[in-house]
C-alpha cells in the first residue's frame, strides 16, 4: 500500500464520528512501510554500536481506545478486571468505564493504562507484534522530510517540544506530527511499549537493567550514550528502562508492527 493511501485510510478512520467507536468492529490502524537500516541505540550493548533493522511495517497511529475495546470484546480475557495480576497491575484500563465500555474515555485517543502483556496480545490477535526497540527508534528517527530527522535543522528541539508539550490526557490520534514515513504521533501523545521491553543493557555483562537505570538517572550513563545532546531520546530510554511488563500507566500506549 502506498504511503498516500495509508495516510488517507488513517485520515478516513479519524474522520468517523465518535459514536461509531463503541462498535465492536473498529478497523485496525493502517500500517506504513519503513525501510530497514541501522540505528544507533542510545545506550548500546558493549561492542554493538548499531542495531541492524530489516524492513518492517508499523501502525500509522497508536492503537486507540476504540480499537482496544473491540479487541477486549473479542477476547474477554483481556477485559478490565479480568486480567490476572501477573499480566497487568491495578491501573489496567483505569480510565475506562466500569460497565465494560469506554466510559468517559475518548474513543479516538491512544489507549493507555495497558500493560506490555495486553499490548503484545492485542498485536498478536491482529497477526502483528509490538515493534522492537530498534524498529521503534528507527521509525521515530524520521523528521518531517527526511528518514534521518537529525539532518533537519532544529529536529531535536522539535521532538523535545512535542514530548514536553504532551497533554496530561492524550487527545485523538492522527492530528499531531507526521513524519517522513507517514507515521503519526511518535512523540507528541504518549510513550509507547516496545517488544523487547527490558532488553537494553549497558554492556553484555550487565547484571540487570537496574544498572542501566541507575547509570541513566545518575548521569553516568550519558558518558556511554551515543548522542548526549538528544535529550528527548534520553527521556525515552530512561522511561523504558524503568518499565516492568505488568505496568499500566496513563502516559503509556503502543502501536503494532509486522
Amino acid at each position, binding site marked *: 500500500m502506498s504511503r498516500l493511501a495509508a495516510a488517507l485510510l488513517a485520515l478516513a478512520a479519524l474522520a468517523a464520528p465518535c459514536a461509531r467507536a463503541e462498535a465492536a468492529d473498529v478497523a485496525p490502524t493502517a500500517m506504513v512501510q519503513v525501510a530497514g537500516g541501522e540505528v544507533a541505540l542510545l545506550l548500546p550493548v558493549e561492542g554493538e554500536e548499531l542495531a*541492524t533493522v530489516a524492513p518492517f511495517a508499523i501502525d500509522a497511529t497508536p492503537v486507540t481506545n476504540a480499537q482496544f475495546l473491540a479487541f477486549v470484546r473479542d477476547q474477554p480475557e483481556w477485559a478490565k478486571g479480568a486480567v490476572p495480576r501477573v499480566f497487568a497491575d491495578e491501573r489496567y484500563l483505569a480510565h475506562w468505564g466500569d460497565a465494560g465500555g469506554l466510559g468517559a474515555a475518548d474513543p479516538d485517543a491512544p489507549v493507555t493504562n495497558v500493560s506490555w502483556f495486553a499490548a503484545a496480545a492485542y498485536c*498478536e490477535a491482529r497477526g502483528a507484534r509490538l515493534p522492537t526497540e530498534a524498529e521503534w527508534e528507527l521509525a521515530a528517527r524520521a523528521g518531517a522530510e527526511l528518514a534521518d530527522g537529525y539532518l533537519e535543522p532544529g529536529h531535536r528541539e522539535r521532538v523535545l517540544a512535542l514530548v514536553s508539550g504532551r497533554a496530561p490526557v492524550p487527545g485523538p490520534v492522527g492530528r499531531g506530527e507526521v513524519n517522513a514515513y507517514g507515521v503519526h504521533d511518535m512523540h507528541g501523545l504518549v510513550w509507547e511499549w516496545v517488544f*523487547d521491553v*527490558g532488553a537494553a*543493557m549497558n554492556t*553484555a555483562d*550487565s547484571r540487570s537493567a537496574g544498572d542501566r537505570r541507575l547509570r541513566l538517572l545518575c548521569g553516568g550513563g550519558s558518558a556511554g550514550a551515543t548522542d548526549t545532546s538528544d535529550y528527548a531520546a534520553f527521556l525515552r530510554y530512561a522511561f523504558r528502562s524503568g518499565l516492568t511488563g505488568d505496568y499500566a500507566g496513563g502516559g503509556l500506549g503502543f502501536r503494532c508492527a509486522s
Partner: protein
Amino acid sequence: MTRTLRALLVAATAASATLLAACGGDGTTGPAPADSRAAEVVPAHAAPAHHAGHPSALPAGELPGTSLFHLASAWTDQDGAPFALPDLRGKPSVFVMFYGDCTTACPLLVKAAEDIEAALPAELRGQVEFVMVTFATEADTPAKLKAYAASKGLDREGWRWLVGSPLQTRQLATLLGVQYRALGDGMFAHSNVVTVLDREGVPATRLEGLGVALDPAVAAILSVL
C-alpha cells in the same frame, strides 16, 4: 501466529477456571513439531472443559493472580513433547533462562541450578522441577537442547529444557525479570537470574547475578515443599 494468542488466552481461561492442574500432564496431544514452533500447539487439555458431571476434573483451587502459570501456552521440551507451565503445578520449580551457544555465563547458571538440586535433602530432590528455557528460539532445537542437557548429565527426570516462540520467550523473560537482546550473531546479551517458584507458580526467591549464594533458593524450596 494468532493461534499462539489463542492458546494463551484459552489456556489462561482454563487456568483461571482452575482446570489445568487436574488435566495437566495428560500429554496425549501428540508430539510437537520439532522446529520449535511449540507455541502453535494448542494443548487439548487447555480447552475449557468444566461441565457438570466432571467431578474428577475438579481443581485444587484458583491460581493466585501473581502465578506465572497464567502463562499457559505450550513449549517444546528436549524430547519434542509439548510442555506448559501449569504442568508444574503442585511442585516447586527452579527457572533459568540461557542458550546453548553461550559459553560464559550460561554454564554457570545451569550449574547454579544443579548445585541447588544437590543442596536439597536426597529424599526431596524428586519433588522439585528444574526448568531451563532458551533465548535462542531458532538455534536451540529440542535435539540440540537434549544434547546440551546430556552433555551435563542433566537430561533426566525433573529437568525440562524448553524452547518456545519469540513472543512466549519474551513473555516468560518479562515475568521473570530477565533482560535479553539478540546481538545478531547468534549470541545474546542477557541478565543472569535464577528464580524459584512455589507450588502455585508464584515467585518465592529470585537470585540475580553470577556467583551469588544459593542458600536463599534452597531455603525457599524447603519452605514451600
